[in-house]
């Protein structure tokens, strides 16, 4: 489903991604773990098409489509979803209106009929039930006055509504207490199907107690330095990233 090859990207001429390789298949859940500042979020932003990052070389294909040549909204319509680490407020814009605009833009791009307000609201109700949120939630303005936890849950709700092929979740657990991590994880599990895939970016192993990844990648200094099964996450939990960082430095070209 997702094929990333030798991806390099920089911001203000500083290289952040230094040759990322990543292959994700339908039905899989991948966890990307790494220390702060290693470039995990940059990978998410570059794949979603944030314009202040410059891709200098490499490839990223979603179901064979060249992602890097597309505007962000076309990537979203192609089935890519990014759950933001710090979702922004959009003052005065109601969440249900925002969701309907996105949902219909995606439908339209697939030549499907747009949903009217009534139909969409019914559809939204089922999604709200799925992620255990109250209907009043979507009558609030997008993230306006939301707590940290509510913002994160809102991202999961949006994922539920937009039904992406590939969801990249950028630290959906950061800043959450134990209970909130569990609810968020349950939401993510609910949304998994054999046809979609999830790339979960996280700093801590904590959330992986509730969502079980098929593949775990260790991301250090702009690259994936080690790939393995879920036992890799347990290694990180026990030993931290130091060992991987030392190994990564040793293997870096030119050192």
């Amino acid at each position: 489903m997702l094929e990333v090859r030798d991806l390099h990207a920089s911001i203000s001429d500083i290289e952040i991604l230094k040759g990322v390789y990543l292959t994700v298949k339908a039905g899989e859940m991948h966890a990307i773990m790494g220390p702060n500042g290693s470039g995990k979020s940059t990978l998410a932003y570059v794949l979603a098409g944030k314009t202040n990052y410059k891709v200098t070389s490499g490839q990223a294909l979603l179901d064979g489509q060249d992602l890097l040549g597309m505007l962000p909204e076309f990537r979203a319509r192609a089935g890519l979803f990014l759950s933001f680490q710090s979702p922004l407020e959009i003052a005065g814009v109601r969440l249900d209106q925002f969701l309907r605009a996105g949902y219909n833009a995606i439908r339209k791009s697939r030549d499907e009929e747009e949903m009217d307000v009534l139909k969409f609201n019914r559809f939204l109700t089922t999604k709200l039930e799925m992620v255990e949120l109250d209907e009043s939630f979507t009558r609030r303005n997008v993230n306006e006055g939301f707590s940290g936890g509510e913002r994160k849950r809102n991202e999961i709700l949006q994922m539920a509504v937009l039904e992406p092929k590939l969801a990249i979740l950028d630290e959906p657990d950061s800043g959450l207490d134990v209970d909130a991590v569990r609810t968020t994880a349950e939401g993510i599990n609910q949304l998994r199907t054999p046809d979609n895939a999830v790339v979960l970016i996280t700093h801590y192993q904590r959330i992986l107690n509730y969502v079980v990844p098929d593949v775990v990648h260790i991301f250090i200094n702009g690259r994936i330095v080690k790939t393995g099964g879920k036992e890799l996450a347990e290694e990180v939990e026990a030993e931290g990233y130091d060992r991987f960082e030392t190994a990564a430095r040793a293997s870096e070209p030119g050192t």
Partner: protein
Amino acid sequence: MATLAEPPNTSNKEVKDVLGQAYKYGFVTDIEAETIPPGLSEDIVRFISEKKNEPKWMLEWRLKAYHHFVSLLEKQQLPGWANVQHPPINFQDIIYYSAPKPKTLLASMDEVDPELLKTYEKLGIPLQEQKRLAGVAVDAIFDSVSIATTFKEELGKYGVIFCSMSEAVQNHPELVRKYLGSVVPYTDNFYATLNSAVFSDGSFCYVPKGVRCPFELTTYFRINTADVGQFERTLIIAEESSYVSYLEGCSAPMFDTNQLHAAIVELVTLDNAEIKYSTIQNWYPGDENGKGGVYNFVTKRGICRGNNSKISWTQVETGSAITWKYPSVILQGDNTVGEFYSVALTKGYQQADTGTKMTHIGKNTRSTIIAKTISAQHGSGTYRGLVRVMPKADNAWNFTQCDSLLIGDQCGAHTTPYVEVRNRSAHLEHEAFTSKVSEDQLFYCNQRGISTEDAHSMIINGFCREVFKQLPMEFAVEATRLLDANLEGAVG
């Protein structure tokens, strides 16, 4: 290597098309009009008054205003304090009277010139349909003469008078005489003086005691003849415990020379009465180089004369080359409430200097000001407001919020709030912020599949929401559409 190339099916062409989109309402209706040569003199004032078959007191009032205007002109006392720039106006170049011919009284809608009706249809207000449209009565002003008034009969059942100002002068002289100029005296300001001398027509509304007006009342103004100054005058009186909601909408076709529009609106509420006055203004803003466009110099003021009464102004200002208006409330009665909700959009080379004055005189008076200024391209928007608390206004309360949204880096937004408090018990709050539509917000929307154009529109409408929700439902929809249409091509 890999760069952000636009996919072939992107809306780039559409964006360009939209950028070049011309003013949609720029057509001239081909009907014969009775127009007098340009220029202002005592004779012209007399001519207008005579044309309207006015009583002597009305003519005298006009002449007093005219002589005052001449003295202001001689002393060159033109207002110069607003944050707007324009070449001097030659008041002798303006045509002060124009009326569609033939001017006979129309018994029903069916007698209205079909060309006129077509014009209204192009404007999106099919008058024919209005009869069936529940809840909206329209008094349409075409150039200077009110063409048709619908719903008059229905309103009559409730004792509500809704007619043109000319008719009111004929049929309800006692009311006109009592209230005309009682809120905005002819000496009030330069353009108010000019209006008082030459006002051509306008709307008049009287809601009797205890009546809640069953419809939203609507007036649609349109300037059709080139070089016509439109000087309409509106007067609304809400008697004790009555309520009326009134909406005016404006548009003008394209002409190269600037047209002066100097209107006056006066509102009066007595005990426990409420007037809600909403404006959607979409006069021609001039072309992309700032040529042409309407000068909209308007004086709007209401007085809460009776206790517990309320006046609420809501305006959506998207048109005109220059807008200069400060819908104000004098809170004379005790426990009175004044409100001002405004969205002012400037793009191209538009300039807007707008805001309000809240004058607290009575006890326990409250006022709320929510002003949203949006500037794009070379637009310049200024909020100018005054909150004045008089010595006897115990426990006066005001909340002011003026926010600016900038789109692009060529535009400007200014905020000039004045506060004058002469009673220590007053409570005033002021909030203001200036923001830009952020790249991160746009990216967030894009990531949900929403195009950049749509995201802009959504964010801007969200910015205006507090004001739009004050508008009657159908007009809120209209305002949203108007804002979108005006912003197409100005963003992204």
